[in-house]
């Protein structure tokens, strides 16, 4: 009998010759919440995939309940009682809630006929016992992200998972939803389930976790009890060095108003949004996910145009109906989802950077390859992109480098107004600092920056002014001096009691 329910010993995994995991060991006790911490690229996701059988290790052993096991696919790990919930949820959008919980394992009567009555009854009982209220017949497609996560957890619960792995579960949740999630997780812990919790939000770890394992660059660094570490300890262990200044903000005197938005609205999405943006300032937009900030950005950029209200660029009233037009007006938008909206993953770096400005390198439509590449190279070099060469496909790069490519793409359009949507999501601390430094430099040079962010430290550290949105409306407006975490959260969650959240 061993005290550990799961043990990984000397896990090594290589992808195309590059060692992504190097002799990593990990041990999990039943009934504990064990956090897995590390920068992007540290190997957390790969370790989890080895645990669930998605990848097979090149070297190393897995022990479950003291016995050696190996999983060749996720079915086997599932059967062994290991369930995983990823950021990309694996629900079935066209099936309803109850079916999603029991997909592949619907209760049957004799003869193989599905027992629908039992399925709905069991699903109902399960959700009720978890304190989740959902209409069982709703298709998963129509649920919010938080609700979808609840269904996933219910599913894990129903297969009596003894080990539950959660990969960045809170990145899209409101504070209230996070509280609900934590409640469920604690409940599972009480029942003896072991939970592996991956998150880069240190506050969450301190609230929920029992122990934390830190990884760095594919290697194991340390495992500590949460009560024995401080925030700085964790950052130091994660990064291997101290980050002196994550938010290098310069003081810039704001210039004239370049962007003025009045009573902007889009039916069913946001209403009555008004604000001004001046040259040289960084306007932070805070709020919970789903508050409508990205929708406002998309309206200003012409992707999903507004249906009411006005936009003025440098004093002139304009109706922006396409990104093409927005770019011509001097706008640039770095989207929230890099893979989906920011990059062309299967094309080389050059093509990615030059895409919005391709006409510059086309004499009467005829492409001038060399000129294009030179310009793109210059932009990439300035951003200190780390890659093999300009022909490399962007999908092969790390998150931080990908973000640099997206930024250099947009900066080469010479925008006067830069909209950044979650600019440092999913990138390592080192690149984060670099991006912030870049923002400061650009602002000092006169760029007007609208920064949408769900990371309060980032909002507080980088903004000259802060706007807060909630359910499609602006609910708060603070200057840098006035803004505090409490005020922002209060405005972001207005009319909803905080309860156990903070």
């Amino acid at each position, binding site marked *: 009998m061993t005290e550990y329910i799961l043990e990984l010993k000397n896990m090594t995994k290589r992808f195309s010759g590059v060692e992504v995991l190097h002799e990593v060991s990990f041990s999990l006790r039943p009934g504990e919440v064990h956090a897995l911490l590390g920068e992007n690229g540290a190997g957390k996701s790969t370790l989890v995939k080895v645990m669930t059988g998605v990848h097979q290790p090149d070297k190393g052993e897995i022990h479950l309940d003291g016995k050696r096991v190996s999983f060749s696919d996720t079915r086997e790990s599932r059967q062994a009682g290991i369930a995983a919930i990823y950021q990309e949820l694996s629900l*079935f*959008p*066209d099936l309803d809630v109850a079916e999603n919980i029991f997909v592949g394992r619907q209760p049957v009567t004799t003869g*193989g006929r599905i027992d629908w009555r039992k399925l709905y009854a069991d699903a109902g009982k399960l959700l009720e016992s978890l304190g989740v*209220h959902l209409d069982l017949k709703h298709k998963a497609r129509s649920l*919010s992200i938080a*609700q979808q996560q609840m269904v996933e957890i219910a599913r894990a619960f129903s297969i009596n998972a003894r080990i539950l792995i959660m990969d960045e579960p809170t990145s899209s949740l409101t504070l209230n939803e996070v509280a609900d999630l934590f409640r469920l997780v604690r409940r599972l812990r009480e029942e003896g389930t072991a939970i592996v919790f991956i998150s880069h939000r240190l506050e969450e770890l301190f609230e929920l976790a029992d122990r934390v394992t830190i990884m760095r660059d594919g290697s194991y660094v340390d495992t500590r009890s949460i009560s024995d570490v401080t925030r700085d300890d964790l950052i130091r262990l994660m990064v291997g060095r101290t980050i002196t200044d994550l938010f290098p903000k310069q003081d810039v005197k704001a210039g004239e108003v370049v962007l003025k938005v009045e009573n902007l609205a889009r*039916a*069913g999405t946001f209403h009555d949004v008004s604000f001004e943006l001046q040259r040289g300032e960084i306007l932070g937009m805070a709020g919970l996910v789903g508050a409508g900030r990205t929708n406002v950005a998309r309206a200003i950029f012409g992707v999903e145009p507004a249906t009411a209200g006005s936009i003025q660029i440098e004093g002139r009233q304009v109706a922006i109906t396409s990104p093409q037009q927005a770019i011509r007006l001097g706008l640039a938008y770095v989207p929230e989802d890099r893979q989906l909206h920011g990059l062309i993953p299967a094309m080389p770096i050059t093509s990615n950077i030059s895409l919005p400005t391709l006409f510059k390198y086309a004499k009467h439509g005829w492409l001038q390859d060399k000129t294009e590449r030179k310009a793109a190279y210059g932009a990439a070099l300035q951003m200190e992109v780390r890659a093999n060469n300009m022909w490399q496909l962007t999908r092969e790069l790390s998150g931080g480098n990908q973000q640099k490519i997206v930024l250099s793409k947009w900066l080469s359009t010479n925008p006067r107004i830069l909209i950044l949507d979650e600019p440092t999501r999913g990138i390592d601390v080192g690149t984060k600092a670099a991006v912030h430094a870049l923002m400061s430099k650009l602002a000092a040079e006169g760029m007007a920056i609208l920064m949408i962010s769900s990371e309060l430290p980032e909002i507080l550290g980088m903004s000259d002014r802060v706007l807060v949105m909630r359910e499609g409306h602006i609910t708060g407006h603070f200057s840098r001096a006035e803004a505090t975490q409490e005020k922002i959260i209060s405005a972001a969650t207005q009319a909803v009691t905080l309860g156990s959240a903070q």
Partner: protein
Amino acid sequence: MQNSTSATPPVRSYLSNLVWTLVRFREAGISIFILLLMFVVTLRAPSFLTTDNFNDILLNISILVIVALAQTMVIITHGIDLSVSSMIGLVAMMVAFVVKQNPEMPVIFAVLLGMALGSVLGSFNGLIITRGNVPPIIATLGTLSIYRGLVFFYSQGTWINSFELPDNFKMLSKGTPLGLPNMVIIAVLVALVVYYFLNHTRTGRDIYAVGTNPDAAPFAGIRKDRIIFLVYLLSGILAGLAAVLWVSRFESAQTNTASGFELQTVAASVVGGVSISGGVGTVPGVLLGALLLGIIQNSLTLIRISPFWQLAAQGLLILIAVISDKWILTRVERTNK
């Protein structure tokens, strides 16, 4: 402890109910449209509303129903089977040859033979799609040509005529021991079986799962490749059944038998609410879609519109169906946000 998932505003559940009705709306919508159409046609041609005519319509769509149901299962998995017409053609010719040479053979053997031959053709499709990673549209485009070419190669250009076929075989489709023609009964049986399969068995539900989120299916323990292989296999089997009925009904097997039929199967499915991106589709919807197609075909003849406009009407119907689908969807999404 207060209501936890207060993130669900009351507005959302009302709208979700609306969506629910609108999804049902599809079948209700087609039904209403059918009734209207029937009303209009009867005004112009009273002979429409007779039992003989309805018999005719049912006969005409029986084969379509069988193959459209198979096509539906394929489309639900986000695939398509363009080769059904050629599968029917090839099996029809082969079965006709065998029946001609062995007129004493019990008819049931012919049926089983047809289904067996169809299963081979369908499994070839399934194999190259699942193991060969050939996209369904390419794979079935290829087999559409290959199987049709095999018909020519097999028959060397000849065909089987009515007098070369035994009577009991011809009665397979037309005989009415139970009041309705056999073929209609067979179609009804197939519909019932497919309905049961899709709604009350795990494998049937797996088909929907694979269609709506193929990447997540393995995580739920579903063998995606097996499911996809299965739907193409079933497509072949049902095409084989349809082939036997085709020969029986039209009392002939020609080199161009069933040519172009695949379009009708896709039309019936799409009109019946099956989504081309997978995961959505019901048996009643497809039945109604086939019925609509049959009524249109029938009424155009009754109103003396040249049969040459049939094809145009079918095409227009497909366009109308998808446009209205999209319209409903955008309406719903806009109010849901």
